[in-house]
């Protein structure tokens, strides 16, 4: 039964991706891409990775969909048709590549152990009970640190392209048709609650900084979409501090660890350090993602002011 389910998911993922490439209208392609994200998060749940499923559903399907739709609205009429011809010159090399990669799957060793056991053995030292959070914030702290850096650079890049240093200026446009304030009243507290709960869960169960952060980010994007003024009320200084907080907290951790060891990013065996970094990272991820979505709109009436 499970096998049938896997087959259905696999085939529909392949089918939807082919439809996205072949779709004539850009609008159709983007809607199919959102479907693709949701199917992919089903696949993550089948592969026992609930963390990725949450992040994929919120980011891959939700935020990416909002960004793509928004850009499409600014760039062209949604019904604009693209010429899509099957080009054999390109299709044959791509099929060949797919065949080669599929062939390589046969050579995956059966008794391949991975790093699961190593992580489980080192887990007690981190005082965390959930391996993925431990990998993200402790064992592979560098990855997370630099990833927060990438987010920050992306926000700065978007602001540079828009030629503004005013982050709050990006919050201005309230869309003409509000979703309806009652939906916001209903959903916003729930989303903040779920985001906070996921963050708290991260120490011992599926959840953590990323998942909490992306749920909070979608709450923020919903506030903006509905034309709610509350996001704009946040002081500019706080906005900047929170954007940098994730990256900065890792930086502080890295520096302060140099005082008692010779290595970067090792921390005393207390949970407080990790939790502090995790909370700062969550806020930073949420605000960076919100800024990326809000920073992108370069509508005409706005541009003249800048």
């Amino acid at each position, binding site marked *: 039964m499970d096998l049938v389910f896997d087959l259905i998911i696999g085939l529909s*993922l392949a089918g939807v*991706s082919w439809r996205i*490439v072949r779709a004539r209208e850009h609008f159709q392609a983007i809607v199919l*891409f959102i479907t693709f994200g949701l199917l992919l998060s089903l696949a993550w749940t089948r592969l026992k990775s609930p963390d990725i499923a949450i992040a994929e559903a919120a980011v891959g399907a939700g935020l990416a969909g909002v960004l793509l739709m928004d850009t499409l609205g600014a760039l062209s009429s949604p019904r604009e048709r693209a010429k899509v011809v099957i080009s054999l010159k390109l299709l044959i090399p791509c099929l060949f590549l797919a065949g080669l990669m599929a062939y390589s*799957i046969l050579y995956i060793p059966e008794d391949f*152990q991975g790093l699961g056991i190593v992580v489980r053995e080192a887990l007690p030292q981190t005082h965390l009970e959930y391996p993925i959070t431990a*990998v*993200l914030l402790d064992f592979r702290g560098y990855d997370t640190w630099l990833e927060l850096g990438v987010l920050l650079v992306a926000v700065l890049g978007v602001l540079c392209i828009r030629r503004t240093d005013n982050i709050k200026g990006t919050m201005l446009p309230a869309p003409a048709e509000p979703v309806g304030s009652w939906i916001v009243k209903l959903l916003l507290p729930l989303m903040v609650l779920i985001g906070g709960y996921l963050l708290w869960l991260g120490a011992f169960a599926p959840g953590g900084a990323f998942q909490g952060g992306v749920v909070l980010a979608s709450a923020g994007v919903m506030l903006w979409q509905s034309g709610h003024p509350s996001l704009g009320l946040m002081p500019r200084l706080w906005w900047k501090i929170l954007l940098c907080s994730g990256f900065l907290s890792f930086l502080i951790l890295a520096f302060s660890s140099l005082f008692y060891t010779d290595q970067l990013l090792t921390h005393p065996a207390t949970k407080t350090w990790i939790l502090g970094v995790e909370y700062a990272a969550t806020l930073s991820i949420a605000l960076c993602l919100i800024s990326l979505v809000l920073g992108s709109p370069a509508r005409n009436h706005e541009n003249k002011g800048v």
Partner: protein
Amino acid sequence: MTTVIIYALTATTLFSVGLYGFAIHPDLIRKIVSLNIMAGGAFLFLISLAYHTGSPEVDPVPQAMVLTGIVVTISATAFALCLARRIKEKTGQCLLEHRRKDTET
């Protein structure tokens, strides 16, 4: 084992389809969407390998890498879309021109 093969095959298909889409579409938005499909394929391949390990639980290291990867992908997508808007503002169209070489030669 069969589950792993199904998802790994899907992942390679997604990657190739994304690559094909990236190559055939002159339109920048469609290129960005295709890149996202490629990223989905790469992530799926990583996780199907992580699922494959002998131990009962899924290998946490690739999972953490994919989580990081998803956030990096969305930042790159947002930045690329912003650049696409700028290109549209400057040139009036949002295409990567293929034929320039042909006309020159």
